[in-house]
């Protein structure tokens, strides 16, 4: 990666990506749980999820569970790769020789 990924390099989005990366591949997490995990407000999280979705890093699925609307988010293959590249880039800054 030639430069820092500006989409990921934002505190809330970084937490979102890291939280999603910790889950098994293709595992979805409910929006409500994700909000608690990254300690963001509903509106704030929604806006950042939208940015990540537009970049193709996360996929959002909306449906109904027990007659209640449910929003679930998961990391895409592209998002997983981008996050790994982002982490590698940061490590490269810390230890340029590695």
């Amino acid at each position, binding site marked *: 990666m030639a430069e820092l990924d500006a989409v990921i390099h934002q505190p809330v989005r970084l937490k979102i990506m*890291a939280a999603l990366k*910790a889950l098994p591949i293709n595992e979805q997490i409910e929006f409500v*749980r994700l909000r608690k995990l990254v300690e963001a407000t509903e509106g704030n999280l929604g806006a950042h999820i939208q940015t990540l979705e537009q970049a193709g890093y996360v996929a959002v699925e909306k449906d109904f569970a027990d007659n209640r609307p449910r929003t679930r988010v998961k990391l895409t293959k592209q998002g997983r790769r981008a996050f790994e590249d982002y982490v590698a880039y*940061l*490590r490269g800054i810390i230890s340029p020789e590695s």
Partner: protein
Amino acid sequence: MDPITINPQEAADALKQADAAERRSARAYVYQRFAPYLLLWGLIWVAGYGATDLVPRVAGWIWLGLVLVALAVSMAIGRRAEPGRLGPKSNWRYSLFFVAVWAFFASTYAVMAPVSGMQQGAFPPLVVAFIYILLGLWTGPRLVIAGLVVGALTLGGFFYLPQHFLLWEGFVGGGALILAGLWFRRV
């Protein structure tokens, strides 16, 4: 948009944030997966130990029935958590898992015999507590706490309330598992 430039300190801070979020999420995931099983076994303990105290003569049959129910519910929980991923092989794994657990306790009682009903009742919760503590050392402190609480309550009931031990184990031990299950569901 101009490329962002950051210094090594900022990079280290970002990595630290990412690492903390990743660890928190991984732990929450493990807890979430454990929660339904804790709730299930809490209910099984309440029913099993309670019934054993009321009708000890048929305790073996009661537990056999409850374990079969637990097996079926565990499989349903597994399927719900991983739809499409659990095939027929998983059914066999679940079944063999329960057979292995059953065989472990039956053989342990056989080699330790003679054991009293109270000892038989105390041993499984102590093994469960021990396993939770070991798993918790690698996955998260909530499991360690749940294991310590269940183990301490079991030992407390065994030594200080022997006349009501089965009821104690059912309602206090089982209740502790149910509370732990509810706690594990929270982020």
